[in-house]
């Protein structure tokens, strides 16, 4: 399924593969088994993680109850699917992955408690989880103290780079700059109205957006924030009508989205006319389920992944996902990023030839994954992924049509100079 950087195989691993191949010449079929036989648990696990001769334990930590459950369920499903697929292929270093699932219950202190449990009690070799920044901030000290490894799937505000986290979503600049460049070049946008939910991610993202808009010599005509869960956007919609911006740059999250886009439509702003054009970085296919495709039609979104991507990796992924979780399921940007977590971890473990966190960390930079549904991705030194930015145009059926993608992978830059 995935091809890793072969040249990066450590000597230990290479020696063991050779040993295994000598023992069993019919290596193709049973190479995984021979690998396991060759690599004793004592060799691949020197720090007391939950690794046995044929299993390895990992954690899945998302909210499956509470307000965030609706967003995080897709990530849980993606992670389970990836783990099942890896197991079907023979596991990691010949060991089947067993997962321990914990519920963060949309409550940040609970996330901290459960992450500690996964690391201290379960000795999880890796944890796939968290969604909101608040939950990540709550577990971060725990992962750093107990030296765990977290694969974090959500696009987020950046300003962070922990040795104990691999960020499989985009940091803010990867979503924002290419999107604004695109809208100015192809849609000739001159003025922007920035809008967001009131917390760190929308604020930081808009800060970056504003700096970039200034740099391009264009104008920001308004910037407004509303509390999480806010549902009455009529006053800001009136302001938008008054200021007549070319682009509404919307970073509204969660349930507020439903109210915002419905009210926008009710106020007579037809997004398909693109006067003004709506560009969002917070509405994935998952959110459109709640908003309704007809209310979202015509909006643009800047993400790295859309379900409608036509490459073969993605077609296989979508088919497998639907087979596992049902035909009417939709797959958003974060779900895909969550799917990358177990695969990146497997690749890192195999490159390191060990489950030890320090070795996995050392093996992670420059790791490549050619089988990602979004296409080729690569782990940067700063633990974020190189990935493309794509622009999707919302269709009435709740899907996005990809209208643009950046030519090259965009370098992750969690601490953008000149944007702070």
């Amino acid at each position, binding site marked *: 399924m995935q091809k890793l950087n072969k040249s990066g195989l450590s000597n230990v691993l290479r020696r063991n593969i050779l040993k295994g191949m000598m023992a069993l010449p019919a290596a193709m079929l049973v190479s995984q088994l021979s690998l396991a036989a060759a690599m004793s648990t004592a060799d691949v696990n020197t720090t007391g993680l939950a690794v046995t001769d044929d299993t390895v334990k990992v954690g899945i930590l998302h909210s499956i109850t509470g307000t965030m459950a609706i967003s995080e369920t897709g990530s849980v499903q993606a992670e389970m699917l990836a783990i099942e697929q890896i197991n079907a292929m023979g596991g990691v270093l010949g060991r089947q992955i067993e997962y321990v699932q914990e519920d963060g219950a949309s409550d940040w202190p609970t996330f901290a408690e459960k992450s500690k449990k996964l690391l201290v009690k379960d000795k999880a070799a890796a944890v796939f989880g968290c969604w909101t920044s608040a939950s990540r901030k709550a577990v971060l000290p725990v992962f750093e103290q107990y030296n765990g490894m977290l694969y974090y799937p959500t696009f987020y505000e950046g300003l962070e780079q922990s040795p104990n986290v691999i960020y499989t979503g985009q940091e803010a600049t990867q979503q924002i700059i290419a999107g604004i460049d695109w809208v100015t070049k192809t849609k000739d946008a001159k003025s922007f109205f920035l809008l967001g939910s*009131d917390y760190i991610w929308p604020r930081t993202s808009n800060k970056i957006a504003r700096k970039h808009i200034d740099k391009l010599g264009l104008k920001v005509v308004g910037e407004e924030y509303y509390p999480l869960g806010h549902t009455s956007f009529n006053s800001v919609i009136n302001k938008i009508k008054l200021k007549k911006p070319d682009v509404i740059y919307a970073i509204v999250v969660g349930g507020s989205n439903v109210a915002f886009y419905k009210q926008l439509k009710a106020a007579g702003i037809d997004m398909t006319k693109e006067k003004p054009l709506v560009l969002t970085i917070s509405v994935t296919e998952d959110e459109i389920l709640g908003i309704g495709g007809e209310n979202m039609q015509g909006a643009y979104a800047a993400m790295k992944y859309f379900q409608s991507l036509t490459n073969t990796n993605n077609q296989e992924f979508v088919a497998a996902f639907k087979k596992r979780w049902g035909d009417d399921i939709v797959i958003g940007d974060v779900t895909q990023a969550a799917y990358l977590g177990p695969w990146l971890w497997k690749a890192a473990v195999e490159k390191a030839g060990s489950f030890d966190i320090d070795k996995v960390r050392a093996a992670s930079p420059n790791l490549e994954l050619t089988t990602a549904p979004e296409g080729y991705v690569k782990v940067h030194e700063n633990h974020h992924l190189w990935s493309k930015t794509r622009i999707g145009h919302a269709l009435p059926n709740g899907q996005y049509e990809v209208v643009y993608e950046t030519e090259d992978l965009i370098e992750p830059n969690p601490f953008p100079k000149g944007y702070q």
Partner: protein
Amino acid sequence: MSSQISAAPAQNSSPVDWWKYLLLAVILLVVLPLALDIFRLNLIGKYLTYAFVAIGLVLCWGCGGILSLGQGVFFGLGGYCMAMFLKLEASNPEATAIQSTPGIPDFMDWNQLTELPWFWQPFHSLSFTLLAVIAVPVIFAFIIGVAMFTRRVGGVYFAIITQAIAAILTILIIGQQGYTGGVNGITDLRTFVGWDIRTESAQYLLYFVNVALLFACLFAALYIKRCKLGRLLVAMREKEDRVRFSGYNVASFKIFVFCIGAAFAAIGGAMFTLQVGFMSPSFVGIVPSIEMVIFCAVGGRLSLLGAVYGTLLVNLAKTSFSESFPELWLFAMGALFIGVVLAFPDGLAGLYQTYIQPWFKHFINREKVGLTPPAPIPEKTTTPAKEPVASSLSSSLEESRNVPA
């Protein structure tokens, strides 16, 4: 239910069952530290910080009849005061060198603040912080108390207003993220006056400090409950007007007990921050405040020890249900609450008094059994001289309750 409430005043004059406190002390100080590893013990420590709030609620709600659905406010204020001190210590210029403005907390830097706001400045001082942990919530409680109780706002209206205050404070904290850390809270706290609070030894020590403070609060609450003030509180709960007509200033007693409840909650909040290593607005809002009332109700809202056991039981159940059935645990919790309310409305303490204590009595002095049904008798038998006073008070209360309001 009624037999339980009428028993309460009588209990006030009975000698304290010190062995029960000793038992709790043995469980918390000896059994649990020996039986549990540091991860579980730290969790117990976290639960015990909620017990501070529950003890305060026993005084306010159980004794005084003042149902506050906003105790999370005081827990949060105490916790935030401590968190501000720890955060300033963690944000020294070396550790924050990559920020645009080194030396201020990271979330301020993200929110484009370039200097420390004035109200953060005093939290550089430990002594100020320790004072503020208690003083800020108590002053806040005092203001609320004066505003409400002198205007004779009580009962359901008071409960609703405290809930509104909890909601307002949460919105304020989330909205002012540059100053408060917003929805993320104040995270990544490391040291307390140079002492790393994340190490195992520190967590052990903090656990014992926590238990010691809990007992200090328990005894303070016990004293209040048993002195004249405690009886007045019960009298106010049962028939406020009679107490007022007897010449007592009802409002000042209510304000006092509400402030005491706030102080206890604040100590709990500060200990929470120290043991868990962060503070977030999710402890200030309506849901945690109601949860804390549930802890108290499960334990038995009239019993101080019941509050501690109730808090421990509910939280242990929460943790173990959610670990075993991550998808179904909320239903199990719901079933637990419904079960408790239906089967033993007076909580664990009521359960103890109805079933276990008579059995104990039966065991200790067999000859007495049969004459005295469930109603609890003093532990040291026969003090008839004192009995009439207590029973007359209790019977008058009994009587007054039967008058339709």
